């Protein structure tokens, strides 16, 4: 190196050329003025992500979260693998909470109503106003809130006590009937805990447990574990009992399409069979059991007596079983009794203490709607001076019949803590926007013995002057001269956790820091409830299906949407554009109708109908669905907002309308409808839950029609192609691995944290790559070059679609709007295909629905590559089919030639239309694609590169550790169905998982594409045709 360039000179040259490049630039846009950090924040390194632990507040499940931030902006949320609920996964809604954080429609300032109109105000003004009004309300203060963490609950209770008034908890979705039934049956005021994974036969009586309810992510994981084939070639059986197949139901092996509301009859009929003549086993419920013999149950439910008897036999004999009681969609007027019936069934089958535990839970009993009814009455009666609403949107989630709007409107001073507009805050006199949970301190106690701490992961988004409601209450309390215990909520929270200290932790502060880092504190678990004798109800309960209102010929099912919940996610374009896991429809509402019903009325997909109940009517297009009974129609909650932000209201997000006003693809008719319009306002007795299954409806075609904004092209059939083949359990070959290998350990570990657990080899072979004769030289040093590959176990995949949103968030995939989806231009890099093989809504029997996540298959012999005229796509030496965006000229030949149809094109300037600050979510490690280029799954190349660079820096060689790189989709998958890694390494998980007799590659036998994605066939109990 004597004559070579010196280091100093090299740096000079580098500096000069670098500056030259920066000045002349290759950018087409003028550079903005950049300001460097004057004082470098300690925990921010430009270009390096900082991760924070926190807790998701997307629903009541409270999954632990890790949040990736870059330069102080949250850009991705992932499950916290140390958290017992999320187990490292998240659902689609959890992923979409980021879009709430950056929701451009959030209130920018406190809003004060003046002369009938809202105007921007200051916090000082708002807090003074509130203090003044509370003072003059003289003790008549009502605080309506949704579920909150224990500290926040404590603070609000303290506040309400100090100023005089009361707090009402109102949750739009709640498990109150189950809680009440558990209290009646066992005297435990808590939800039971299930061991789904431990069951060999799971019967869901209308419980959509992987999409709504207490803990969807956890239960999806458990369901996958239960129903996956194990090393003994056996798998748990899942039976769904209910009038409509939700995405939970679509995962079942058998379907009992019972009449709506007949869950109790079937459960009791089964219990009757199980106890035989010995009805005394049911304790105080013996007379009930006698009343529901299998024959009368069969009549009540509309399925054969034989089917019920057989199911009961299996329930008793097929190992540990478990039955889950009706969830929100099946909450009718006797929902508590129905849940009780299911608990009785579990009891007589011996499941209590085996798969169902009575642990006790956090002491937050609620009577969600009954309490609200009382509150509405007192508001209407003029007994409330100031009403404050936090975290709930009853003006939308309650039917008009509840009288909420009138009563609320009648209150003298209405305060909303909504951070973004909703129907309730639109009526408020004062809006004090709360911070988003990712900007807030807090805690939660999702179950007994588990306390989780929430910390802000970033400074509040500067576009919005939001303030934590806890801070507001403390500040207002001070103005009213009440000492609530602290000046900021942070202090208050720390004081609440003063008992955090354990001797092992040393100082309290260490314990606090540690808890923040981990995100959870295990507190004392209340003793397990051991007295499991059934107790008699204190009031009479009816187990029959209750009569429904109206004389229509169709029963209306109203179910919580897996995408929107009760409506709180309706302003997220990711959620709106995520194809519904069942219907595959995006953006708009639809009414599910059985094919026979539709045929009898001459209806087709997209025909508008008027749905009329005694309480109102809505106009909605129909979607024909074989997974619903002929006498039933279904409508999802969550849409039809009037004041919830641009996308929910249907005023944002259509590209074509901007481009060509007169185009023929304008979405016709309404975007969404709110099914609450059709419902009465009834509180279930005795639990006080809101009754959703309450009415019959008539449907009448309006003569209008629209194209459904669906992403499904084939009407549910595989058309004789082995896209998602299955294999019958009985035809699994002995001697070859067929089990779903457990991959959970270490899979969800973060970068460098560790978790590499080598799996012993048993006959895995690396996939042949590169192919003979291809441009790539053959591998002679497998230790130096990886062949990245993926394995997806279809026996585990539930179709929940969390992966789709995770991918969208990680890879800056734009949403495109309803009109673009209708034209077939959705941009998601993954799609969940759903094919019906056997769906019969007329009788109980086998159910066979195939669900397959499709993404770029990273073919070793990729058809897309030779056709590209400019080499914009090619196979990397690691077998990844790479797409070079800035080389792409947009011929779309690659997409034409892709047999999997996984390539998506940027038809318009989609990313430019993403409004500030929603674009703050963009991942800086991933290119934001412009108009006119092709894109597709990149195997999260930015994650691969990051890990490879780290491995190089740490002198670990060119290939990162197995499990060190985790795909975004894989990370989010609650079922742990996706595995990714180096298939050249026989010890890698992906090799282990792929070495399975169920492994196949889609269409490879037909067209020799040599994909890098191995699928493991779904395993069915019934024989399947064409098992290849």
């Amino acid at each position, binding site marked *: 190196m004597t004559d070579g360039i010196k280091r100093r000179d090299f740096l000079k040259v580098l500096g000069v050329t670098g500056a030259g490049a920066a000045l002349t630039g290759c950018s087409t846009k003028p550079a903005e003025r950049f300001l460097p950090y004057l004082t470098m924040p300690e925990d921010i390194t430009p270009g390096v992500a900082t991760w924070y632990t926190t807790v998701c507040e997307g629903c009541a499940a409270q999954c632990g979260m890790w949040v990736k931030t870059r330069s102080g902006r949250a850009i991705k949320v992932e499950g916290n693998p140390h958290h017992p609920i999320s187990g490292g996964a998240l659902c689609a809604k959890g992923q979409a909470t980021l879009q709430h954080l950056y929701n451009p429609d959030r209130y920018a300032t406190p809003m004060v109503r003046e002369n009938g109109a809202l105007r921007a105000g200051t916090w000082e003004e708002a807090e003074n106003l509130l203090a003044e009004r509370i003072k003059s309300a003289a003790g008549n203060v009502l605080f309506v809130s949704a579920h909150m963490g224990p500290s926040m609950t404590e603070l609000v209770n303290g506040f309400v006590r100090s100023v005089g008034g009361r707090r009402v908890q109102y949750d739009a979705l709640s498990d109150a009937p189950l809680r009440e039934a558990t209290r009646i049956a066992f005297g435990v005021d808590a939800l039971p805990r299930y061991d789904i994974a431990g069951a060999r036969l799971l019967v869901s009586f209308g419980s959509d447990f992987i999409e709504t309810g207490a803990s969807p992510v956890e239960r999806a994981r458990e369901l996958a574990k239960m129903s996956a084939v194990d090393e003994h070639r056996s798998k748990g059986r899942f039976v769904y009992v209910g009038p409509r197949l939700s995405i939970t139901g679509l995962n079942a092996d058998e379907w009992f399409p019972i009449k709506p509301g007949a869950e109790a009859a079937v459960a009791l009929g089964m219990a009757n069979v199980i106890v035989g003549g010995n009805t005394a086993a049911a304790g105080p419920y013996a007379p009930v059991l006698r009343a529901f013999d299998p024959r009368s149950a069969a009549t009540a439910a509309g399925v054969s007596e034989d089917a019920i008897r057989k199911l009961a036999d299996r329930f008793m004999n097929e190992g540990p079983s478990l039955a889950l009681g009706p969830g929100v969609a099946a909450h009718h007027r006797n929902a508590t009794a129905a849940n009780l019936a299911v608990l009785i069934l579990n009891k007589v089958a011996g499941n209590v203490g085996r798969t169902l535990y009575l642990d006790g839970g956090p002491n937050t009993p609620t009577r969600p709607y009954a309490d609200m009814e009382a509150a509405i009455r007192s508001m209407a009666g003029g007994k409330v001076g100031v009403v404050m609403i936090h975290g709930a949107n009853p003006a939308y989630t309650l039917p008009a019949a509840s009288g909420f709007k009138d009563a609320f409107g009648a209150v003298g001073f209405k305060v909303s803590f909504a951070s973004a507009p909703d129907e309730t805050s639109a009526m408020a006199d004062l809006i004090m926007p709360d911070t988003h949970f990712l900007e807030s301190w807090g805690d939660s106690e999702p179950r007994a013995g588990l306390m989780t701490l929430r910390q802000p992961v970033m400074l509040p988004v500067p576009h919005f002057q939001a303030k934590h409601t806890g801070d507001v209450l403390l500040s207002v309390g001070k103005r009213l001269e009440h000492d609530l215990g602290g000046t900021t909520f942070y202090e208050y929270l720390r004081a609440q956790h003063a008992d955090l200290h354990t001797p092992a932790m040393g100082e309290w502060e260490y314990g606090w820091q540690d808890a923040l880092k981990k995100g959870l504190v295990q507190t004392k678990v209340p003793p397990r409830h051991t007295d499991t004798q059934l107790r008699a109800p204190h009031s009479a309960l009816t187990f029959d299906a209750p009569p429904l209102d109206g004389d229509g010929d169709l029963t209306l099912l109203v179910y919580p949407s897996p995408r929107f919940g009760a409506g709180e996610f309706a302003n997220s374009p990711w959620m709106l554009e995520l194809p519904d896991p069942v219907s595959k429809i995006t953006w708009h509402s639809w009414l599910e109708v059985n094919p026979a019903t539709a045929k009898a009325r001459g209806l087709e997909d997209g025909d508008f109908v008027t749905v009329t109940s005694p309480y109102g009517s809505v106009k909605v297009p129909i979607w024909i669905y074989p997974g619903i009974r002929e006498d039933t129609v279904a409508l999802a909650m969550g849409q039809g907002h009037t004041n919830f932000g641009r996308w929910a209201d249907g005023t944002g997000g259509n590209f074509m309308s901007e481009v060509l006003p007169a185009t023929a693809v304008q979405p016709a008719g309404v975007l969404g409808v709110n099914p609450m319009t059709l419902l009465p306002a009834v509180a279930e007795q005795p639990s006080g839950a809101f009754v959703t299954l309450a009415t019959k409806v008539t449907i009448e075609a309006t003569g209008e029609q629209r194209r459904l904004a669906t992403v499904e092209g084939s009407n549910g059939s595989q058309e004789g192609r082995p896209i998602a083949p299955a294999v019958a359990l009985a035809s699994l070959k002995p001697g070859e691995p067929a089990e779903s290998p457990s991959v959970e350990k270490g899979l969800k570990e973060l970068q460098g944290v560790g978790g590499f657990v080598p799996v012993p080899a048993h006959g895995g072979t690396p996939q042949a790559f590169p192919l003979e004769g291809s441009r790539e030289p053959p591998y002679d040093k497998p230790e130096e070059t990886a062949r990245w590959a993926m394995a997806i176990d279809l026996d585990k995949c539930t179709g929940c679609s969390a992966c789709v949103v995770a991918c969208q968030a990680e890879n800056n995939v734009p949403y495109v709007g309803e009109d673009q989806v209708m034209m*077939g231009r959705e941009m998601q890099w993954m799609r969940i295909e759903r094919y019906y093989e056997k769906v019969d809504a007329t009788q109980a029997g086998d159910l066979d629905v195939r669900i397959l996540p499709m993404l770029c298959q990273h073919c070793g012999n990729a058809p897309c590559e030779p056709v590209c*005229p400019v*080499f914009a796509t090619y196979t990397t030496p690691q077998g990844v089919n790479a797409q070079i965006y800035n080389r*792409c000229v947009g011929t*779309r030949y690659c997409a034409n030639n892709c*047999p999997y149809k996984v390539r998506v*094109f940027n*038809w*318009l300037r989609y990313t430019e239309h993403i409004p500030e600050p929603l674009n703050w979510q963009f991942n800086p490690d991933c290119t934001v694609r412009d108009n006119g280029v092709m894109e597709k799954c990149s195997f999260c190349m930015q994650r691969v590169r990051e890990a490879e660079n780290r491995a190089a820096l740490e002198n670990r060689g060119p290939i990162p550790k197995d499990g060190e790189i985790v795909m975004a989709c894989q990370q989010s998958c609650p079922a742990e169905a996706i595995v990714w890694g180096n298939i050249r390494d026989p010890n890698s998980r992906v090799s282990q998982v792929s070495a399975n007799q169920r492994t196949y590659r889609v269409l490879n036998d037909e067209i020799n594409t040599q994909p890098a994605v191995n699928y493991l066939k779904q395993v069915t109990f019934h024989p399947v045709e064409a098992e290849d």
Partner: protein
Amino acid sequence: MATVATERGALTHPDVHQFDEVNKDIVKILSRPGKGWWALFFLLGAGVLLFFGSWAIQLWKGLGVAGLNDPVGWGVYITCFVFWVGIAHSGTLISAILFLFRAPWRQAVYRAAEAMTVFAVMTAGLFPLIHLGRAWHAYWLFPYPNSRFIWPNFKSPLIWDVFAVTTYFTVSATFFFLGSIPDIAAARDGSTGLRKRFYQVISLGWRGTDRQWHHFGKAYLFLAALATPLVLSVHSVVSWDFAMAIVPGWHSTIFAPYFVAGAIYSGVAMVITLVVPMRKVWHLEKYLTIKHFDALAKLCLVTALIVSYSYLEEFFLTWYGASVVERASLWNRMFGPYWWASWTMLTCNMFVPMLLWFKRIRHSIPALWIISIFVNIGMWLERFVIIVTSLSHEYEPFMWRLYRPSHVEAGILIGSFCWFGFWFLLFTRVLPPVAISELKEVLPPPMRKMRKAEEAHP
């Protein structure tokens, strides 16, 4: 120039008696245009504005203004590309191949056919640009030296297209221009003023000397020989855009001959479509006789039979191949949502031209003209059917989607006809639309006395 032995009984232009007459008749067309011409000029000019206006909208907004979507990435634009390249083919066939084969009837029609070729390639060549997502990077498809040492992907049929179409345009434009030189000189001699100066420049000093004729003849022959293989190669290459892909409905070895035959078929039909009104307007009946149309009609019939055979062959092989995917694709093509396009195509290309078996039809100019319009429509639809129905119904049933062309695509489609027509219209006023010098070759030598004697004593 090659002389063609013509017997008196087989005169192609029995009503043309004198060489001078030819000059006068043809150069007359170049004189001051009438109202009809101006009306057409403005109409087509407006169409050209529509063409570029629509394209400008697309460049500004993005390709999304077209109706394309994710499975159907190619639609009207590529249909038009293939259609116009196909149209181009018969010009070269008539001028080069028939020249080499010494067909005596080509002289009257070949100039118009050649002009058609050049303008059709000019139209076709725009479509690959129009259809690009990022048209401003189109030059990346050319192998130009660059600092990144990136060449185009020579495996891609689209690169073959680039070479095929540019070569074709170069050769056919040169051929067209070269063949016109003696006629431009004739026009020069018959014009005055600015016009004369213009012709003086582009006639390249043609004086009609023996030496010039000698060189001209050689050059023409060589160019004809050079252009001939292009007739076969260009459309074969275009067909490989499809045949090389694995899309069911595209992946077929029959595509090259099938497309070449189709191209000639559509081109001949387009020649008939264009020449019939020219003949009528400029009273060229004595130059474009019924014999010419009879010959064109026969060429049309032959290619119609080849194309029909290809259709049947495709049906048979799809059935015989027993691939689920291919069969479904074909079934969808014939009975799926695009059935109307397929059946219209079959009617126009397979059934209607069978009328040409009848001499009476071949000798009826209006009937021929109508049939040629049918063939034009049918051949456009053929490309539409191949491209759109195949892409909309591929391997993945979940991604079966339909394509509906948008207003912008309609604008560009209509605009492309206007763009083509606009050039052709200008051509008819600028260059002699019938080859004067070559026509004279097939006229009997000027033996005034003998002719008079014959007339006197038949």
